[in-house]
């Protein structure tokens, strides 16, 4: 019995040892893939995310794969989609990899993308995928941020943002029609926090901003004192010492899984695959969480952002069907409720 156990252990160990380098390789791709990717030596990356954030990702990728040069083209969401469509139709699509926050728009373009799944495909939440070709290389989440020098009684929940003590444009909001990310937040507010949440909040008098970046800047400057923000926009500022803090509210954290894919016309398909594999790997996701303030769509997160208690904080992913169907009528109502002229 004892001998048997020992043998089994020995075999197991031997298998395990043999599997170790193989696993390290498999995490990002086979030896052949890596060799082929390095031979291609470059890829072009289209992104709608913040340029600086994505440059950090590229830098980190290059620490592991220094022989692959990543060229980036960055444009705001709607403009990037128009460009991809037009380039593709003219047979001049320059992208090997596309990174985009609007899953609905990317789904319409699914035909441009090749079949692809990362080695750790099974580790991803199924509700974060809209197509088997498109993967959440980036996942962002909503937090409540405030200026620490100006707010005495900081909000702790989403419901706190309807309290009369925060009236008169203390709170800033990115307008709901701004894009997929803000629509996700507005949908969460209405479906989870209550039908009358918008009305209660709008009555306080809200300062409205066209997008998250100027709002995060306004928060640091003290133009507004409290603002729901995508955590990654404010996180880097907090790390650099800005007078700001951000919390994840207990009612839930609406998250936005991106839809990233490899184009069928990719000139460097292997480099593209390796880049996607790395971004979707535990290492890639952990880097984005700890250094950039992202969230992840992995079922078991390799790391948590600061202040994220996995026992308390619940992730909220919008139902994709409702996300598409409710969008126009609800945003019209949002505009009316907040008095926003579209």
């Amino acid at each position: 019995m004892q001998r048997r156990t020992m043998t089994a252990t020995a075999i197991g160990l031997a298998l395990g040892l043999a599997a170790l380098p193989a696993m390290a390789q498999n995490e990002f791709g086979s030896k052949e893939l890596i060799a082929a990717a390095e031979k291609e030596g470059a890829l072009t990356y289209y992104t709608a995310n913040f340029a600086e954030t994505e440059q950090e990702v590229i830098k980190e990728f290059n620490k592991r794969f220094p022989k692959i040069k990543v060229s980036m083209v960055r444009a705001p969401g709607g403009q990037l989609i128009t460009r991809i469509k037009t380039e593709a139709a003219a047979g001049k699509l320059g992208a090997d990899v596309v990174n985009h926050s609007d899953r609905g728009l990317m789904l319409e373009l699914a035909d441009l993308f090749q079949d692809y799944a990362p080695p750790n495909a099974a580790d991803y939440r199924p509700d974060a995928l809209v197509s088997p070709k498109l993967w959440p290389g980036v996942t962002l989440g909503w937090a409540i941020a405030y200026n620490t020098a100006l707010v005495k009684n900081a909000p702790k929940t989403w419901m706190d943002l309807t309290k009369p003590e925060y009236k008169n444009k203390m709170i800033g909001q990115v307008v709901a029609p701004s894009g997929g990310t803000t629509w996700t937040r507005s949908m969460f507010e209405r479906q989870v926090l209550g039908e009358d949440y918008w009305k209660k909040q709008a009555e306080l008098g809200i300062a409205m901003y066209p997008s998250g970046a100027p709002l995060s800047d306004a928060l640091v400057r003290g133009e507004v004192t409290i603002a729901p923000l995508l955590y990654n926009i404010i996180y880097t500022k907090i790390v650099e010492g800005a007078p700001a803090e951000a919390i994840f509210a207990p009612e839930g954290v609406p998250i936005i899984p991106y839809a990233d894919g490899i184009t069928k016309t990719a000139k460097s398909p292997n480099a593209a695959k390796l880049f996607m594999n790395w971004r979707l790997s535990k290492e890639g996701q952990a880097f984005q969480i700890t250094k950039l303030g992202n969230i992840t769509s992995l079922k078991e997160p390799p790391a948590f952002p600061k202040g994220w208690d996995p026992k308390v904080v619940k992730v909220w992913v919008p139902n994709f069907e409702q996300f598409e169907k409710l969008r126009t009528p609800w945003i019209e109502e949002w505009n009316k409720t907040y008095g926003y002229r579209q």
Partner: protein
Amino acid sequence: MTATSVEALAAVNEVQRPPRRLAAPLWVAALLLLLTFLVIYPLLMLVFGALSDSNPIVDGFGAFKPSAKHFLEVLANPNVHLAFFNALAACGGGTILAVVIGLAFSWIVVRTNTPFKGFIAGASMIPLFVPPLVAGVAWGILGSPKTGLLNTALKWMNIDFRFDFYSMSGLIIVFGIYYAPYVYMFTASALKNMDPSLEEASEVAGASAFTTIFTITFPLIAPAILAGSLLSFVVMLGIYGVPAALGAPANINVLTTYIFKLTAWSPPLYNTAAAVAILLMAVTAILVWAQQRLLSGRSFATVAGKAFRPRSLNLGKWRWFTFGLALTYLFVVVVLPTLALIIAAFRKFLFIKDFDALFDMKQYSWVHFNSVFDNPLTMLSIWNTLKVGALTAVVGGALAFAIGYTVNRTNVAGRKSIDMLATLPIAIPGLVVGVAYLWAWIGLPGGLYGTLWILALAFVARFMPDTVKALSTSFMQIHKELEEAAWICGRGLLGTIRTIVLPLARPGVVASMTLLFVLAVRELGSSLFLYTSDTTVMAVLLLDYYEGGNVGKTAAFSLVQTLILAVLLGFTTWLSRDAAQGSARVG
């Protein structure tokens, strides 16, 4: 003069000129063909977009089902009405202010003995280099009702008054002070080229200096004033950055911010944006037509074959008053926003609790500059921008000269159409025109897409009206008798252009090429669709920083951009001054 006449005499003996009868139509046809490629073809794409739901490249022309749906939607939308009214109010107010400032300035610089005129003239052009987005950001930092630096200073001085630049009046003031140089450029060169004998006659007849200005000087340079105010109005109509930064916090929409929203939403509504853009074009067409009606049939030729020197009015003690006025303007338009940008660029964060916190030196560092130059795209974008700027200035300058000369100095058939085509692009907002160029040119055979040339061509087309108009005023002022004299001496057309027109119009040519360079460096809207990873330009990178929510890096990078432009412009000024002295010696 002697050298010229000797050359001219020699030219009499030159053999055969090309048959003019055939050359003129060929020349007009060539220009029309070029303008069709640069203007009409992209515009057709835009009309196509406005009249359908399809993308001409993606869906093909077969999918074109014309309908007036977008037009009707746009016309019926009350938010469009409001944005339209806001745009007219902001740009109208801004233009009036710009004319007052620009005219006063050009008079002070050209016609008075105000001290340090050269310095004032140079410094007053600085607002032109500032991208509108940066101007908007800078005035937000200065004039925000809650955290504006001006208000922080007022509070410190115990003054109750507070500025609020997040308002319509804020928009008007910022538009007015930033676009005054447009008016200045036009009126200053007109004043410089004006024969002072008319003013002298007025004074001999007993009119006061004041009366002379308003009854002789300003009416004589009316085309320049009108052209300058029209141009500044139309340019303001197309500006996105200022209303985005100052109007948005107060929920004030203008047409450009509305169009930007249409293109940025997901899904983007380009077809509706194209419909709004065509409305904008209609407004501009009416303005241009009105301007031409007003000016037609009058002669504004004030540069004749007589030698004169612009007269400088001795203001006596009052010259210190005009000097003070000029300094105040420069302080408001250059020093204050630059100071705001410097503070933003060097301060780690822009949270300034009170006035004393402004002087806490621990808060200042080079950190934003370091991270800007750590970015490998920074140097690439600077280099690309310089190349595109130079290409645009040379190609656009040459084309504008050819068009300006043909329209203003010849009687060839078809010149009116050339003029009209060259004026068309003025009203199309950059973002919409960007997508029109993409639609129009991406399918062309040859590797134009993905090169710097496609950017340069887009800029040449987009800024042709500005350049042609700037040059036209110079042409209008050169009296026909000078060219006739050359012809009598036996010069051919090209010889006359080379020896008479070009040297006389040189200040205008240099100014328009410089203007083109500056506009090309600043241009964002059309770059956004045409740049690729290898051809990224500074304006695109600046938007990346702004959209990343980083005022510090945005400010640092815009200071870098301003510095580069200032160095280059200083260099061209030095070059042209040197050349002018050289030619003066020869003459």
